[in-house]
């Protein structure tokens, strides 16, 4: 008799387990891809600088900073504008070097953007055709990477909202600074 009951309930139990399992999967936002770079060393890249074309922004810059933030931005990207204030705030944190990658932009527009909204970056690299940022796995703007001692520890996709600054970015920085 006991056996018989189990027989009837087993399918129900299995169904419940599946429902719970898949509903958990649905909660995840699949449009935001986790980065392949997390826990990996900074990728090898080298790009000319925005304000000084003869110099370059490359892996060495990011690796030599104890804690670095690399932000991929563009003057044509509307969310980047709203994010810029946050970047200005982040640039004031001591011990954090903020770098920029100017993605598929026109030089004059990029310069205009920086001169109007301020320059939070220690160095800005230029990626005219979007190819140099491929090693970073960039597939849109803005994207922000946090690097600690040459290892990528976090990737933020989309603009950093003030809430996200408080809830995600600052705690991560707090842990490593």
């Amino acid at each position, binding site marked *: 008799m006991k056996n018989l009951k189990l027989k009837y309930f087993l399918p129900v139990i299995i169904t419940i387990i599946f429902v719970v399992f898949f509903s958990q999967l649905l909660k995840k936002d*699949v449009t935001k*891809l986790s980065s*392949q770079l997390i826990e990996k060393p900074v990728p090898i890249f080298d790009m000319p600088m925005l304000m000084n074309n003869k110099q370059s922004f490359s892996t060495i810059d990011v690796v030599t900073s104890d804690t670095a933030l690399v932000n991929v931005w563009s003057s044509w990207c509307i969310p980047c504008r709203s994010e810029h204030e946050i970047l200005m705030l982040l640039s004031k944190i001591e011990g954090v070097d903020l770098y920029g990658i100017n993605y*598929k932009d026109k030089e004059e527009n990029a310069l205009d953007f920086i001169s109007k909204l301020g320059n939070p970056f220690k160095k800005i690299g230029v990626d005219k055709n*979007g*190819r140099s940022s491929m090693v970073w796995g960039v*597939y*849109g703007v803005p994207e922000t990477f946090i690097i600690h001692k040459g290892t990528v520890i976090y990737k933020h996709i989309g603009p950093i909202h003030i809430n996200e600054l408080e809830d995600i970015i600052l705690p991560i920085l707090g842990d490593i600074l």
Partner: protein
Amino acid sequence: MKIKCTALFIIFTIFVSVSFADLNMTAEQNDRAIELYKETRCLVCQSQTIYDSNSELATDLKLFIQEEIISGKSDDEIKTQLVNNYGEWILMTPTFSKANYILWFGPFIFLLLGIFPMYKYIIKKNNRGS
């Protein structure tokens, strides 16, 4: 007039075809590129391949694949490079690696899990019948 029109038409056709032509590749290289496009997911239009997509990122990725083919990389090397940059999700078919064993074998395991009780049930029923 007619000649002018024809000339214009020819020039126009040439321009159009030039704008569609990608990097200089042999027919064989082009076939390989197309196969790779069909294997590569467009990350901004996620259920499409870059072959189907005209998004900017897809165009960049196509160009990347073309350049890699021309520089003599094998298909596997190009795929590895894409996975290193963007993660395994960029491939339409998951690789046959340890981490993906459940993905590949899972359905068969579940099938066996289903067949076994059914088999037992049928045997039992047949026995009862005879």
